[in-house]
């Protein structure tokens, strides 16, 4: 059932909030009061409730079923996190209160920082980045600042594998770098010969995702680290897939210089329909001095936030700047720490193992009917290509949309770009074996159906969703981005 927009339903003279009457004092705005109408409808509370509850039911969600979006890590979001994040001592404090009145909050940031540094074996973490891509920016800016500090004005080329997330090249460019793509080898990993050939005096860094976006561990990562360091560059690790190795591998032991951590992917803070994220970024000794303000410090029993460059310099640091107002995503810190403490060091390791186990189980169960993109086992994601759909008239997109009719969210499609018609499946550790079996049964059954020529089932899908396929071309050609005024 179609749900009208609030602009079609609400009344401009109604309100779902009761407020006391203003006293009618003469204003002191310097004569800058608004005179025109704004055009904002107001709905009574019951109408508001119903509008958004009904809209919500047009969404798929982890709480409804398996959400196998590769590279996105849709895992269970514990409600304990939600409860603790709402303690008045965390949710109802102002970022600029006297630090003496928020000692527990700064301690929490410091405690989370300790967990992150310990899990990565790094000496420093910048907590303020607001999302994964923001963390990338943080890492690459620190690299740029370190190069500048070394007077290396020619090092501006950043090596990025073809299979990288789009954010990697975009970030490099925002730091004044150019990017140079490294091809993948036949096993889905960095082509070492190509990589070596690209090293040189103008190389600033490599940006490498590990496990990579094909769901594979970069076997040669230590060698890559050594080579880039020898060449005078830095190693930025995209930590998007850290969830596959938490507790089993510490990225600091692999020679990385910077890595962001997606708290929403690795540490279960909710995705919320596209955010907020949080992307704390860890640094090696080499880059630590360039980390941005603010950062957390402890002197004796007193916690403090270093907010200004001058203070940081007094600490012997040379921050590249400030990325954001205030101190970062406190609401995500509380949730992530709640998750981490709940798991503990042993549980986090188990979670990574189960994530990898679940992905390999899907790979094993479906490999007969679908076509794995690469040989061997995988890490936390199973990657298939579309060879199994050859000559069926069914595309990866069609296959994905048919999954909707079976009650599942589709996997990630057409990414990574190095694989034709890629289908990237990430089950995460919070799926049960019984749930995976049902899911694999569905995939296998769909694959057989496609091969049996039941094409309509795919090309016409979805048929049992709140909407049929949407015309994206029309949306882009004739953009309607706001509701027209009445």
């Amino acid at each position, binding site marked *: 059932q179609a749900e009208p927009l*609030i*602009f079609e339903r*609400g009344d401009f*003279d109604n309100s*779902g909030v009761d407020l006391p009457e203003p006293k009618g004092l003469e204003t002191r705005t*310097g004569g800058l009061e*608004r*005179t025109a109408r*704004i055009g*904002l409808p*107001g709905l009574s509370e019951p109408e508001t409730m119903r*509008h*958004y509850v009904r*809209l919500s039911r047009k*969404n798929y969600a*982890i*709480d409804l079923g398996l959400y196998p979006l590769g590279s*996105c890590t849709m895992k269970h979001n514990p409600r304990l996190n939600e*409860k*603790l994040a709402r303690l*008045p001592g*965390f949710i109802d404090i*102002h*970022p600029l*209160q006297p630090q003496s*009145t*928020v*000692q527990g*909050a700064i301690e929490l940031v410091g405690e989370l920082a300790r967990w992150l540094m*310990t899990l990565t074996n790094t000496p420093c973490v910048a907590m303020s980045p607001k999302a994964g*891509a923001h963390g990338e*920016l943080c890492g690459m*800016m620190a690299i740029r600042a370190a190069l500048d500090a070394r007077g290396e004005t020619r090092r501006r080329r950043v090596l990025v594998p073809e299979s990288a997330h*789009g954010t990697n090249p*975009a970030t490099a460019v925002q730091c004044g770098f150019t990017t140079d793509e490294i091809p993948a080898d036949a096993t889905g990993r960095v082509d070492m010969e190509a990589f070596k050939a690209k090293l040189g005096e103008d190389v600033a860094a490599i940006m490498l995702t590990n496990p990579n976006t094909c769901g594979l*561990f970069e076997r040669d990562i*230590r060698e890559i680290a050594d080579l880039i360091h020898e060449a005078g560059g830095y190693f930025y690790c995209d930590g998007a897939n850290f969830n596959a190795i938490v*507790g089993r591998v510490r990225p600091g032991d692999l020679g990385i210089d910077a890595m962001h951590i997606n708290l929403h992917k690795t540490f279960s803070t909710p*995705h*919320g329909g*596209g955010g*907020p994220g949080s992307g704390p970024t860890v640094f090696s000794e080499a880059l630590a001095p360039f980390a941005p303000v603010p950062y957390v410090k402890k002197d004796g029993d007193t916690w403090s936030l270093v907010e200004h460059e001058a203070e940081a310099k007094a600490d012997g640091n040379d921050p590249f700047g400030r990325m*954001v*107002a*205030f101190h970062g995503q406190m609401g995500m810190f*509380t949730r992530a720490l709640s998750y981490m403490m*709940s798991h503990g060091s*042993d*549980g986090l390791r*188990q979670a990574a193992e189960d994530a990898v186990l679940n992905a390999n189980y899907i790979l094993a*169960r479906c490999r007969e009917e679908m076509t794995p993109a690469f040989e061997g086992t995988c890490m936390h994601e199973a990657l298939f290509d579309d060879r199994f759909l050859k000559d069926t008239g069914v595309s990866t997109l069609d296959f994905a*949309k048919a999954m909707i009719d079976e009650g599942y969210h589709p996997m990630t499609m057409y990414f990574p770009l190095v694989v034709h018609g890629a289908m990237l499946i990430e089950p995460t550790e919070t799926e049960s074996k019984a749930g995976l079996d049902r899911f694999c049964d569905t995939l296998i059954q769909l694959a057989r159906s496609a091969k049996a020529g039941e094409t309509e089932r795919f090309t016409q899908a979805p048929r049992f969703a*709140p*909407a*049929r396929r949407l015309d*994206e071309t029309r*949306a*882009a050609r004739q*953009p309607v*981005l706001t509701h027209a005024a009445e």
Partner: protein
Amino acid sequence: MRYLPLTPDDRKAMLETIGVKSIDDLFTDVPEAARLDGPVDLPRRATELEVERAFARMAKKNLSAGEAPFFVGAGAYKHHVPATVDHLIQRSEFLTAYTPYQPEISQGTLQTLFEFQTQVARLTGMDVANASMYDGSTACAEAVLMAQRITKRRKAVLSGNLHPHYAQATETLAKYMDITVETEGAAPGKADDLVKYIDEDTACIVVQNPDVFGHVRDLAPLAEAAHARGALLIAVVTEIVSLGLLKSPGEMGADIVVGEGQSLGVGLQFGGPYVGLFACRDDRNFIRNMPGRLAGETVDADGRRGFVLTLSTREQHIRRDKATSNICTNSGLMALAFTIHLSLLGEKGLTKLARLNHERAIDLADRLSGIDGVEVVTDAFFNELTVKLSKPAAEVVEKLAAKGILAGVPASRLYPGKFENHLILAATETNTDEDLDALEAALKEVL
């Protein structure tokens, strides 16, 4: 472990299906030297009760806004959020959904984003808005980059009264992007003169209103001056409730409006997550150069209205190194909170709320100006103003905090070494007469 459904038996059966002996066999690609034998040196798993206790212990060390007479602002404001908002954003289907890449099963998120965009555009007086940014400061920085892309010019002029965190975030982001940032010195209670900075190389001027000291100014002369030289006016609004009372930046000629939406639906949260607002004129060149996500209206295969993410050719996952920004998330859940709160308020509620805020600030100004050792330096304001004290503001604030009163932000916290005696105070609908009494009495005692 309560979040892990696999049982030991499951694991065994699955390893068998995979055809390996142990879980270690799935980690053989890891260089041997980097394989950890056992758990790292951190506490082991904890029960819910244990985690709750640890958090309660830390939470208790903080003086929460609800426990104190509270006048802290400077970019984040305490407002009352209806219980309905928090209930709705906790709906599983909103909370645990991903970015709406599959529109057929994401119409809930997409339609609310479309409603959000429309609300933001109308509120700011602009034509279009995006689906939100990380926060106000990053929105501000992105707006400067967008102005550079549009005008192909390399200079940005920032008002000295722009929130220093915003200015620094902008400078940091612009740092390696071939943009020069110039800033006028700050001037509490005054509108700084930015016109003199505008030249043929100026992409934009950035001005906050009300400014970080609470001062309200007319942007129209600035817009005129900027446009005369082919530059854009970027207006920054950190207290979005002000637009219920004040002229919108759009009405005063702004080209891009960025803002912090925290005041509606989001709460204080020690600084984040917040929600960045980003709106601009309806100009093809503007829209194609916008950062962030955009929800757009379209139709489905049956011809029914629906919504999708659109114009993604601007974005990193398509354009990679040619993208308008590297951003790939918005602040979805906070945008939802914002839009629900604003749907509840409506125009009637918002304008009333704004007036209540303004009246509380008038009360505050009148109280403060009657105290010896306090000079109110802001005469045109919304809900925030700056005073000059007879003593260093940071000391005074600490003393009042010890009395359980959160009295505001010392200007020196934002401008280290400057404005030692200036204190920035905000008043909202949540302040009672008793709060004002307590502040007044405590200030008299301390000064």
